[in-house]
């Protein structure tokens, strides 16, 4: 373990949304296995800055796996090879000495590239705006214990609410579908009594908003669930489908 890793990095570089991008190769030497993947990119970026070259742009924020900012497609997998792990929590000990690592941005028409590995994921915000909330004004709330909630329902809601909105599901899906994201938010609210009131409107408007953003269609392949860093279940997609069907077909006259 004394010697660090020697790596070949193949990174997508693109100046801005309109320009054409390309894969650029970088050689890295003596990379510590204790580094996180992002710290490895920091090392490369510091070298580029010293040389007066533009460093690689990538989104990152908390670097502890919870904010959902990081969004690297590493060797064909969103967030890289480690299951249930975001790129910022992926460490270089997951790679072999001499490895070639390809790093790309999320690819989806709804997530245009801003620069290099940075994409615009505001489509997710717009889907939430369409109905991913419970309409309760500040001050309106009854006592928190006024409505007991079955522990199991509450735990299931929390499972769905754990989504970090990173977009790995879209990146992994062969159709670039956002169904796992949308269904996770919908399910979180739908599993709680507070969320039932607006359920019908919510499911219809969130699905409509998703449509407008140009995501692909879910073909139930399951790649999203396999790659989700928070291991959100496809059961949520089933729930969304079911609730949409009933909201759309059996709506009040």
């Amino acid at each position: 373990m004394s010697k660090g890793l020697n790596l070949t990095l193949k990174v997508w570089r693109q100046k801005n949304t309109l320009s054409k991008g390309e894969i650029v190769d970088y050689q890295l030497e003596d990379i510590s296995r204790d580094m996180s993947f992002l710290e490895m990119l920091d090392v490369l970026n510091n070298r580029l800055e010293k040389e007066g070259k533009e460093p690689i742009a990538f989104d990152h924020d908390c670097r502890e796996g919870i904010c959902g900012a990081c969004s690297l497609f590493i060797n064909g997998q969103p967030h890289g090879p480690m299951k249930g792990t975001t790129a910022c929590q992926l460490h270089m000990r997951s790679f072999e000495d001499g490895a070639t690592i390809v790093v790309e941005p999320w690819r989806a028409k709804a997530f245009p590239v801003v620069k290099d590995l940075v994409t615009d994921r505001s489509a997710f915000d717009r889907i939430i705006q369409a109905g991913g909330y419970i309409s309760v004004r500040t001050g309106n709330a009854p006592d928190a214990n006024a409505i007991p909630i079955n522990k199991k329902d509450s735990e299931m809601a929390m499972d769905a609410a754990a989504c970090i909105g990173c977009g790995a599901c879209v990146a992994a899906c062969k159709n670039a579908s956002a169904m796992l994201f949308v269904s996770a938010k919908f399910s979180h609210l739908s599993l709680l009594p507070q969320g039932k009131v607006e359920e019908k409107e919510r499911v219809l408007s969130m699905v409509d908003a998703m449509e407008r953003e140009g995501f692909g269609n879910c073909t139930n392949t399951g790649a999203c669930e396999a790659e989700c860093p928070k291991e959100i279940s496809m059961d949520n997609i089933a729930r969304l489908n079911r609730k949409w069907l009933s909201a759309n077909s059996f709506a009040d006259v």
Partner: protein
Amino acid sequence: MTWLSNFLSTSVGRKQLMAVTGLGMAGFLVIHLSGNLLLFVGEQTFNDYAAFLHKQKWLPLARIGLIAITVVHIYLAFQLAMQNKTARGTEYYYKAASDATLASRSMIYTGCLIFFYLIIHLMNFTFETVEGPAGLYGLVVTKLSNPTYGLFYVGAMVVLGLHLVHGIQSAFQSFGIGHRGHTPHLKKALIGLAVLISAGFALIPIIMMITKGGA
């Protein structure tokens, strides 16, 4: 009537139309297969069944219905496939082994193959003039015991199986009939059903090819 147009204008709705038309065709396959299995009961039974079926007044209607759901299914399949293709935008540089099953990734291709098979199948039997004393039974036996046809039919049933293995259980998911408690079993049962349908059809040419010498 927005609820109706929502089925066509939203991703979830279109998938549910795919599911309902797909399940309709799968249902037809089950009836078709049970009819075909009469081949093994005997020549007379099978030909009587065929004649009985052709006498029914509702047959043209059923045919139109079947054609309609097939057309809808195919139309939506292409529409969805095109949308899915454009939704990606730029392709990935790194081509990874997918997390998804072969069956789920190849639906549009297996679907196309099944369509071509369907045309040949219709020309072989439905639009073929039935001659000779053995009637339709004779035609079927002659065709399917021929190794060229027989193997082609077996191959087609493998493709059909692949399509159904993903299609049937996926249809249930699209309706949201799924739950952590019973989905694993439901899913297994639906996959089993798909295998059973395609294996049942495939069995016919296989047995005919084997028994041809003796029959």
